[in-house]
């Protein structure tokens, strides 16, 4: 009985030793990693200057429709009548009819302001983040339409599925206090 007790105590002693060395190791790893940490939270965002509008944001996101949305940076917009992001290329008459619209989900609204300016706004719920308008606006306009991860929808996955599929590595984790990065600003 006493021998058993002794054995038990020895086992407990060894266990305690192992336990504390594991805890120490864990603490070490945590400290090492924490030293490299930037501190604050990170969120996924895409860099519009790397984006080639390949359309994968629309299909790869775990959310549907995608958390990547076209966001209109109004400050950069030229308020053009002939908007490359709104009209299909080669459109003859500049009306809002279905056959003239570039957006596959008709998520862009065009409203008249005054001669010769029009304002374009995006219906978030309809936008699927395909980037078609972004390319059109970039080619002919100022590039005020830009794809961005919209943080009210993004689930901030540990590994972003779009980042994995992005051909140009445009996705990266950014600090949450600079959650949006617009090109040309």
């Amino acid at each position, binding site marked *: 009985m006493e021998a058993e007790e002794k054995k038990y105590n020895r086992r407990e002693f060894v266990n305690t030793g192992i336990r504390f060395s594991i805890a120490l190791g864990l603490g070490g790893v945590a400290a090492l990693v*924490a030293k490299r*940490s930037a501190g604050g939270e990170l969120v996924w965002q895409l860099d519009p200057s790397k984006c080639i509008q390949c359309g994968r944001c629309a299909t790869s996101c775990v959310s549907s429709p995608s958390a990547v949305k076209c*966001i209109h940076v109004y400050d950069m917009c030229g308020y053009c009548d002939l908007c490359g992001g709104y009209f299909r290329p080669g459109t003859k008459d500049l009306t809002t009819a279905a056959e003239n619209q570039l957006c596959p989900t008709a998520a862009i609204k065009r409203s008249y302001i005054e001669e010769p300016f029009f304002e374009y706004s995006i219906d978030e719920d309809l936008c699927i983040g395909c980037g078609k308008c972004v390319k059109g606006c970039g080619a002919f306009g100022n590039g005020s339409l830009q794809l961005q991860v919209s943080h009210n929808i993004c689930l901030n996955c540990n590994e972003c599925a779009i980042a994995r599929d992005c051909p140009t590595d445009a996705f990266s984790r950014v600090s949450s206090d600079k959650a949006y990065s617009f090109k040309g600003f």
Partner: protein
Amino acid sequence: MSRHVKQRIVSWMALGCLLAVLCSFGMDASAQQRFPKPEFENGHTQPPTFTPAPRADFMEVVDVFVLILSLSVVTWLVLNKRSRKGVFWASIFSIFYFGFYREGCVCSVGSLQNVTLALFHTGYQIPYTVIAFFVIPLIYTLFFGRTFCAAVCPLGAIQDLVALKPYSLKSWVEKTLGLFPVVYLGLAILYAATATDFVICRYDPFIGIYRMEGSFNMLVLGAAFLLAGVFIARPYCRFFCPYGVLLNLASRVSRRHMTITPSTCIQCKLCEHSCPYGAIEKPVPAHTKEKRSGLVNNAIFLSLIIPVLILIGGYAGSLLHESLAKVNPTVRLAEQLLNEVETVDGIIPLEIEAFRSSGQSLESLYAEAAGIIQQFYIGGWILGGIVGLIFGITLARLTIYRYRKDYEPNKGRCLSCTRCMDFCPVEE
């Protein structure tokens, strides 16, 4: 129903008081002019650019706080209250908070990849909360056993709920399949360390259910796991979970592990089949003692071949390195360019097009890819070696045993679910 509302409802149900201060953070005011936009004579004002704020940073701290709180509560419920009911309701809470409200990101299981990536890549900045999610459950386990698995982990909790008709598996099935998490952990670490992919997150079967959306495959995978989980309790925890490997190891040396009986075991055998996870060690009959000498020989032999097993494993791993490395997008791109498969069905793949316009030279891409394969080669040796080692240890351990006269939980495998306690007739 917009996601917003959904989030609110869930958060109400889950926490009540912690009602979201979400999205109340105003617009990004840094909008500076690039080129003057037109001036409108009719006084039209331009709408603000739509930039909804991400979840506030302090909410992440709240998450950590909730994690610590629920861990403490569950530990108390398991060790002091010995209440199955309490643990059950705690797991319901976890399902709602960590599952439906937090939508499974970031969980402790996935966090081990972030920590690995941060260890190997100085450029990767890991948030403190992720480190906390990785470390805290391990520390708790180190002292109190796997109470994290019992009811805090949302992946475990949902499986625990559906484990309605659990049948116990044969010991050899349990043991053999139980080695897969080691391989999975090795792969996850290898892929995280090479910054290739987060495998665990990619094949998390329940995240689609918590988010109530996801790809078809993801949802089917989740459904399959739940269905299997009705008959085989917690299949993911037992045969897949890589974090469980670490918890298993930590739990073995835990200071205060739960016990089946509150005081002395009376050998009533009532609990024998109560554990759906096969984690109850039966007493070792006294007469087995007699055959001990043969076993000792066996044990010595098996211990001796451990180095051989490590070598075999390492060699097999190193052989596989190329297949493993092909998952890496850089390697894939380089391989395709090297094989001059520049168009597939007449279409130039986007990756190749993007690479061409990036201005990077082919040579540097090849060098980079060769470097990654080299990493996988080394990683393959280590991974294989460790798997070999674990196989060896498992085999060796299967030849020795400790004389045991009571029913005890296996400290490594026990998930502290407290089911067995209900079966014990002994009062405190």
